[in-house]
């Protein structure tokens, strides 16, 4: 059945067996990954607040030009948009557009709505938004409250659609329903695939010349879809586009900052290319099943080796391997020369990484190539796509390397960092303050204003890490005068003390982490 025929996406726990609780070693997780697609998930008896699918969902939706994002829920659910708006503003400027703010509204559900339902309110909010802003699309983000009180959000959208000129896109982000926030990518893609991929009404030329079909075929053979994860910005997009242009391809970048009027074009590309396997599989499979657009989804172009194989995979599908080899040869020689001066400085320094799984692992391999030693990795969830990356990592590090799967949970991180004492930490947005307060030089592992991907990303990241390591006074000074909110004896305990089921913490874990120090 096509995904557009079902109302809501399946949560990733069910679709992919993704999990969020694990503490152990690299060798164990890589091994388990080989045997079964996933780990059995556990639970924590102590947990800290995290994010839900609404945040990554709205981070994509807020970039879409001429879109109004309606948060159907309590008044606070759309508030992360205040942070994401910085990306919308700078992303527009970088793409040569006027600076503009994202537009979002909240249906601000109150106690009366909770009791009597809020379908009418949503219906009216959609009509109001269409009248006031004249958007091309209206994305309706359904949050926890309508999910519990049972609002028929899709029914409201179906009713409202005939009354408005904008295309209405349902995006189900009920936070309590899934522990895996990567489900958001499926939810966004699901909504867009359902409502925003229609061909323009007057697309067919009235008079078709003799070469029309040939030209369409040529276009298709020379156009690829580049799936841009929301954590990558314009610098990364242009870097990857540069390689694809070199392979004689035009690029449809999707979904971040994609014009709703042109989204349909991704159905007519010759190939879909993922930049992050965890991000894109749902839509890429749909595009293949429904529109015969094959896809490449295996590697993330972070680090030299990964960028090389990312390009090779694509070139092979396009029949342009020879061109790709010339590109890779030229780029890597140039890059290695530029990096040479950093190698002695980075050599042997120990780095700890915390991020979305694929990104964390790919970045670990990059840092290894720069000369760092990998001291530990925390990933926000685990799924089958990452197994290939664990295999690569096994070649680059000790098999006893500490691996922790956690949806943030900085208390485990604080414990690990206190034991491992790395020289450098790379963490997620709003996830660097633990390392910072421990005085560890730290750097954000994604920021849509900075370059991370491809060859240029390696160099730019090296430059930034040099800067952090050269003068870590901010973190060092802060650590001398502030402290983390954990009791002193926490640091003497096993970091995975509060993981209570599903996962076996190896008995010799502490010895192993001693060894890996």
């Amino acid at each position, binding site marked *: 059945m096509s995904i557009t025929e079902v109302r809501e996406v399946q949560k990733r726990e069910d679709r992919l067996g993704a999990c969020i609780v694990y503490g152990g070693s690299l060798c164990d997780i890589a091994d388990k990954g080989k045997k079964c697609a996933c780990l059995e998930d556990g639970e924590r*008896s*102590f*947990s*800290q*607040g*995290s*994010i*839900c699918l*609404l*945040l990554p969902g709205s981070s994509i939706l807020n970039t879409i030009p001429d879109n109004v994002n*309606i948060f159907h*829920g*309590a*008044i*606070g*659910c*759309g*508030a*992360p*948009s*205040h*942070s*994401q*708006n910085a990306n919308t503003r700078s992303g527009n400027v970088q793409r040569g557009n006027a*600076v503009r703010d994202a*537009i*979002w*509204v*909240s*249906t*601000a*559900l*109150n*106690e009366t709505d*909770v009791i009597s339902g809020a379908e009418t309110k949503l219906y*009216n*909010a959609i009509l*109001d*938004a269409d009248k*006031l802003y004249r958007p091309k699309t209206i994305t309706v983000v359904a949050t*926890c*409250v309508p999910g*519990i*009180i049972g609002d028929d959000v899709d029914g409201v959208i179906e009713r409202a659609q005939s009354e408005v000129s904008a295309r209405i896109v349902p995006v189900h982000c009920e*936070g*309590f329903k899934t*522990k895996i*926030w990567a489900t958001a990518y499926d939810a966004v893609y699901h909504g867009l695939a359902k409502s925003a991929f229609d061909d323009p009404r007057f697309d067919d030329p009235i008079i078709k010349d003799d070469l029309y079909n040939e030209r369409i075929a040529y276009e298709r053979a020379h156009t690829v879809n580049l799936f841009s994860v929301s954590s990558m910005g314009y610098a990364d997009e242009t870097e990857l586009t540069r390689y694809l242009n070199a392979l004689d391809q035009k690029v449809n970048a999707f979904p971040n900052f994609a014009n709703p009027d042109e989204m349909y074009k991704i159905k007519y590309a010759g190939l879909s290319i993922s930049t992050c396997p965890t991000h894109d599989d749902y839509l890429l499979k749909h595009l293949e099943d429904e529109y015969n657009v094959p896809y490449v989804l295996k590697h993330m172009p972070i680090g030299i080796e990964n960028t090389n194989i990312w390009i090779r995979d694509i070139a092979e599908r396009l029949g342009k391997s020879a061109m790709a080899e010339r590109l890779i040869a030229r780029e890597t020689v140039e890059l290695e020369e530029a990096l040479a001066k950093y190698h002695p400085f980075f050599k042997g320094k120990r780095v700890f990484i915390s991020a979305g799984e694929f990104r964390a692992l790919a970045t670990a391999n990059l840092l290894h190539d720069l000369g760092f030693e990998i001291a530990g990795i925390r990933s926000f969830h685990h799924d089958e796509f990452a197994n290939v990356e664990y295999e690569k990592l096994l070649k680059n590090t000790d098999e006893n390397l500490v691996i922790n799967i956690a949806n*943030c949970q*900085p*208390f485990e991180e604080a414990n690990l960092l206190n034991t491992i004492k790395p020289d450098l930490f790379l963490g997620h947005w*709003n996830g660097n*303050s*633990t390392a910072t307060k421990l005085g560890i030089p730290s750097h954000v592992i994604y920021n849509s204003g900075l370059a991370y991907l491809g060859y240029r990303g390696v160099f730019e990241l090296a430059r930034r890490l040099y800067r952090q390591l050269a003068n870590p006074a901010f973190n060092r000074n802060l650590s001398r005068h502030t402290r*983390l*909110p*954990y*009791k002193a004896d*926490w640091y003497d305990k096993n970091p995975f003390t*509060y993981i209570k089921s599903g996962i076996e913490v190896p008995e010799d874990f502490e010895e192993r982490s001693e060894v890996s120090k």
Partner: protein
Amino acid sequence: MSNSIERPRYYCSLGGALSTLEALPDTIPILHAAVGCAGSIAWAQNGGSGLQVGGYCGGLAVPSSNVSERDVVFGGVDRLHEQIGTTLELMDGELYVVITGCVTEIIGDDIRSVTAEYRAQGVDIVAANTGGFKGNSYLGYDIVLSELVKQYVAYDLPKAPKTVNILGIVPYMDAFWRGNLIGARRLLEKIGVTVNTFFTNEDTLDNLKNSSSAALNVVLSDVYGVDAARTYEEVHGVPFIQATLPVGPTASAELLRAVASALNLDVDVEAVIDEENRQYFRYLEPLADVYNDADLQKYAVVIADVNYAVAVTRFLIDDLGWLPVLTQFTDVLDEETQEIITAKLRTDDPIPAPKVVFDTNATEAIRYINELYPKQESDKYAETLTPAFVIGSSLDRSLATKIGAGHLSVTYPISNRAVLSRGYTGFAGGLSLVEDLLSAAVAAR
């Protein structure tokens, strides 16, 4: 648009309660909520609170029960019980406060019976029902403070006749909360009053615990903190007065007089005010030439929350001598409050009073401005809104660009300024506001 609020300039009551607790010393908030609530609030602070996120126990470090679909079906009380137990084991604090999100509030978890069990064991623990659908973050501040007043603040303490508590400045919603609280504190200390501000680096939890001994609560807001002050009055017999956020000389002097009078202080308040004015104007003195030479007087558009909309508009009228033409309140306010506030923005002849509007949708400001300055047949001698300045949030930059005005962010969301110790209260705060307004006005000089 009553069916929706555009880019709400606040978050939910859970968020307001959490931000309030993050600002209290040695306090560990415990969220009984869905997994994403803490993150949404951290991101909201990240984008709107002048680069400040969390505090001692904030951001993604706050304990949270992260209730799931299973808890929605079977109830989340057991999970909360477990979470409190492990939190007490692991998190280093003096006071623990359980606050609820939408999900646990709708399913009706009885959090108070759980906290009562722990309280019986001698733990300082408080429960507050803050489910996000109850209202916005300003309400959350009042809900959680009221519960602290009832469940944590000590009963039957002897009164300290010269001690006051400051309420009405909401941490993180007001990015300048620390500077503003310190500013209010310094101001009132000038007349010999001991001041509890609860949230600053100069406060301890004991100040909160013993705050029922205060002789007076001073609410520096027309709306925020009033419920908490009423709770103090009902539960601990502490009376309260309300005053405008004291930005600059005029409002500061009024506050000093009001507090001295309410406390029956035997202090020469006018002498204190004279001395403060002397210092303020000595600072201002060297500005006399350039202020006039560069023609730095402006027409102003103020778009802000209740505290700033009133305080900044009054400061511009009474102290700086600008002409506010439009003041838009972005809070949801009842009619009675709207009338009280509108009365506060009256002016004496010949100063034109600003048009006062209550509208949560700030992009409507341009429509109000166009009504004030209708298109003329010939624009050669037309009245125009120049020179103009927009004081609001960072979202009002687009309006400023559209009307060719300068711009300063003072109210949530503030994404384009770093705020740590800066504040606008008191005489000194007035100087800071003059500096910031004029710096923005001459940035291209």
